[in-house]
C-alpha cells in the first residue's frame, strides 16, 4: 500500500491533465463564478458531462430553478449562495449519484402547492447531499421516490412561526435505504419527516426549535434512529402508523406545551426503545394504540408524566428504566392493563429491601390516584401537592380501590440503574 500511493497520485494527476487537455469526458472540473469560464451555474451544468465536477465559486446566484439532470458533483468553494428569491425551487436533482456539497441554498419559493424545496431530489438513487447550509427555504431538503441517498452534515435552518407557512427541514417521501446523518435542523415545521420511507437510518442529528415535531414518522417501517438530540420542539417527536422501528440512544428534552410529548407513539408495533433519555418533557412517552414495544433502560427524568399509556396499548414491556423526579411516573385513562412493568427504578418507591438483593420486597404501583383524577379532570392539577391529594394517594397506596389492580411493578429496584 505504501509504495502504491505515489503511483496512485501520479495516475490521478495524469488523468486530470489529460482530461483538461483533451476535453474528453472522463472527469473534468468546470468552474463557475465571475472571472471563471462559466458565469452561471446553469451554464456550468449544461456544459458538464456525466461524472464531471462543477465548482461554484463565491458569489450569489439568482438563477431561478436549477435542474441537475446528469450525474455530476456540484461543489461550492467558499460558500457560494444559490438564492431562490422566494419564488423558485432552488436546486432540483433528477439524476442518480449526484453529489451536492458546500453550497448555501436560501429563499426557496413558498407556494405550498408543489412543495418547493431548497434541494429536491426526484426519483433518484445514490444522491449525496453533504455539508450544505440551507437557510429560510420552504422545505429544506426534499427527497421523493429515492433510494440509497446520504444526507449528511447539513445545517438546515428556517425561522418559521406558523405551521402553515413553513415546510419540513428534511422531508423524505416514498424512499428507501436513506442515511440521514449529522444534520442540524431548526425553525422548520418538522425537523425530519418520514412518510413511506423504509430501511433507513437517522443518526446523530440535532433537531431543535422546530414548530411541530423534531422528527415525524408516518407509515415508515424498518427504520432506526440513533443518537439524535431532539430539544424544545413544539410537540416533540412523533412515530405513527409504523412498525419495527428502533429508537436508540436519543435524547428528548424540553419538549414543552399543552400537546407536547418527548415521544409520541401512535399505532405502532414491534419496536424497540432502548437507552434514550427523556428529560423535562410534558410527557416523556405518550403511547396510543401501541403494541409489542419494548421500552428498556431509558431515563425518564423531570417530566410531567414519565409515560402516558392509553388504554389502547397492549403487550408492551417496560423494564429496567429509571423514573426520577417526574410529577407522575405513569398515567393511563383506562382500567385494563395489558402491559408489563418489570425491574424499573422508581424514585417514588418507598419500599424496603430486607435481603439486600437490590430488589424491593414489596411491589410498586406506579399509578397514583391523583394521576387518574388529573387524567379525568385536568384542572384538578391545581391541587398538586396539597394535603388532600397526599392523603388520597396514601390511602390509595394502602388500599387500592380506584387504580387498576395489576398496574404494578413486582420487582422494583432499590437503586438507580447506571445508564
Amino acid at each position, binding site marked *: 500500500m505504501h509504495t502504491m500511493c505515489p503511483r496512485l497520485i501520479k495516475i490521478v494527476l495524469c488523468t486530470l491533465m489529460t482530461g483538461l487537455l483533451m476535453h474528453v469526458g472522463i472527469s473534468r472540473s468546470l468552474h463557475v463564478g465571475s472571472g471563471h469560464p462559466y458565469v452561471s451555474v446553469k451554464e456550468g451544468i449544461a456544459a458538464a458531462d456525466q461524472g464531471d465536477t462543477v465548482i461554484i465559486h463565491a458569489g450569489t446566484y439568482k438563477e431561478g430553478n436549477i435542474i441537475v439532470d446528469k450525474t455530476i458533483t456540484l461543489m461550492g468553494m467558499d460558500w457560494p449562495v444559490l438564492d431562490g428569491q422566494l419564488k423558485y425551487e432552488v436546486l432540483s436533482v433528477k439524476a442518480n449519484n449526484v453529489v451536492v456539497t458546500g453550497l448555501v441554498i436560501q429563499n426557496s419559493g413558498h407556494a405550498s402547492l408543489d412543495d418547493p424545496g431548497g434541494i429536491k431530489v426526484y426519483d433518484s438513487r445514490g444522491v449525496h447531499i453533504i455539508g450544505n447550509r440551507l437557510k429560510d427555504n420552504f422545505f429544506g431538503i426534499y427527497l421523493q421516490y429515492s433510494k440509497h441517498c446520504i444526507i449528511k452534515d447539513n445545517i438546515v435552518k428556517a425561522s418559521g412561526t406558523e405551521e402553515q407557512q413553513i415546510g419540513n427541514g428534511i422531508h423524505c417521501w416514498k424512499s428507501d435505504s436513506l442515511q440521514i446523518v449529522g444534520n442540524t435542523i431548526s425553525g422548520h415545521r418538522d425537523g425530519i419527516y418520514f412518510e413511506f420511507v423504509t430501511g433507513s437510518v437517522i443518526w446523530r442529528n440535532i433537531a431543535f426549535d422546530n414548530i411541530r415535531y423534531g422528527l415525524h414518522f408516518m407509515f415508515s417501517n424498518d427504520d432506526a434512529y440513533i443518537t439524535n438530540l431532539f430539544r424544545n420542539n413544539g410537540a416533540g417527536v412523533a412515530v405513527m402508523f409504523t412498525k419495527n422501528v428502533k429508537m436508540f440512544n436519543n435524547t428528548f428534552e424540553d419538549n414543552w406545551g*399543552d400537546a407536547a410529548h418527548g415521544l409520541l407513539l401512535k399505532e405502532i408495533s414491534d419496536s424497540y426503545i432502548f437507552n434514550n433519555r427523556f428529560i*423535562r418533557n*410534558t410527557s416523556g412517552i405518550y403511547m396510543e394504540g401501541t403494541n409489542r414495544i419494548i421500552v428498556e433502560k431509558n431515563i425518564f427524568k*423531570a*417530566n*410531567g*408524566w414519565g409515560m402516558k399509556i392509553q388504554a389502547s396499548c397492549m403487550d408492551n414491556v417496560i423494564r429496567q428504566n429509571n423514573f*426520577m*423526579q*417526574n*410529577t407522575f411516573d405513569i398515567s393511563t385513562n383506562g382500567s385494563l392493563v395489558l402491559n408489563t412493568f418489570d425491574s424499573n427504578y422508581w*424514585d417514588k418507591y418507598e419500599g424496603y429491601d430486607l435481603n439486600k438483593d437490590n430488589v424491593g420486597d414489596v411491589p410498586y404501583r406506579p399509578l397514583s390516584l391523583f394521576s387518574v*383524577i388529573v387524567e*379525568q*379532570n*385536568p*384542572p*384538578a*392539577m*391545581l*391541587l*398538586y*401537592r*396539597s*394535603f*388532600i*391529594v*397526599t*392523603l388520597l394517594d396514601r390511602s390509595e397506596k394502602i388500599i387500592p380501590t380506584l387504580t387498576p389492580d395489576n398496574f404494578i411493578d413486582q420487582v422494583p429496584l432499590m437503586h438507580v440503574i447506571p445508564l
Partner: protein
Amino acid sequence: MFNKIQRFIVADILKNRIVLAYTLLLGVLAWSVFSLEDDSHKGVLTLLNIVLLTTPLVSIIFTTIYLYNSSEFIELLLSQPIRRARIWTGLFFGLFFSLALAFIVGAGVPILLFVTGAKAIILLVMGILITAVFVALGFLCAIISRDKARGIGIAILLWLFFSLLFDGLVLFLLFQLSDYPIEKAMVGVSALNPIDLARIFIILQLDVSAMLGYTGAIFKDFFGTGLGAAIGFGLLCLWVLVPYLVSLRMFVRKDL
C-alpha cells in the same frame, strides 16, 4: 413603645417548650428529609408538604392558646399607660417574630444549606408568610370567643378548613363543573386559601413540570409573571392584614 412589649414577649416565647419542640421537629424533619433523599429536589417537595401542614397548625393553635393564657397579663398591661393598639401589635409581632424565628432556625437553615437559588428563598419567604397569616388568624380566633375551649376549637377548624376541607371542596367543584371552562375561575378560587396560594407559588418555582396543560398554563401565565407574583404576594399579605386588623378593631373595643 410596643417594641418593648414585643421584645419581652419574644424572650418569653423563645423559652416556651412548645416552640422549642416545634423548632426541633422542623429541624429533625428537614435534616432527615435532606440527608435521606439523595436529590434535594425531592427533598424540597417532601418538605413543602411538611411546611404547609405543620406551620399553619402550630402557628394558629399556639397563638390562640398563648393569647388566652395571657388574658390576665393583657389586663395588667391595659392598666398601664399604654394604647390598646400597641399592646395588640406588640403581642402580634412578638408571636410572629418568635414563630418565624423557630421556622427559620428549624427549617430555614437546612433549606439554605441544601437547596440552591430562588427555590430556597421562595420556600423560606412562603413559610414565614404562612406563619404570619396563621398567627393573624389565631388573633382572630382568640378575640372572637371569650371561651378558651371554643376559641381553640375555632382555630383547629380554621386550620382543618384551609389545609383539607377547602381543597376537598375545590376537588368536588372541579368534578361537578367539569363541563364548564372553569380554569380561570380557579385562579380566583385559589386566592381564597392562603395555603393554596403559597403552595402554587412554591410549585411554580420548584416543579414547573407539575403545572401542566391548560390550567397549568393559565397559572403560569398569571403567577409566573412579575405582576402575577406581585399580586399573589399582595394577596398573602392581605391574608395577614385583614384578620389582624379585624382582631385589632375588636380588641380596641373589647371589655376585658
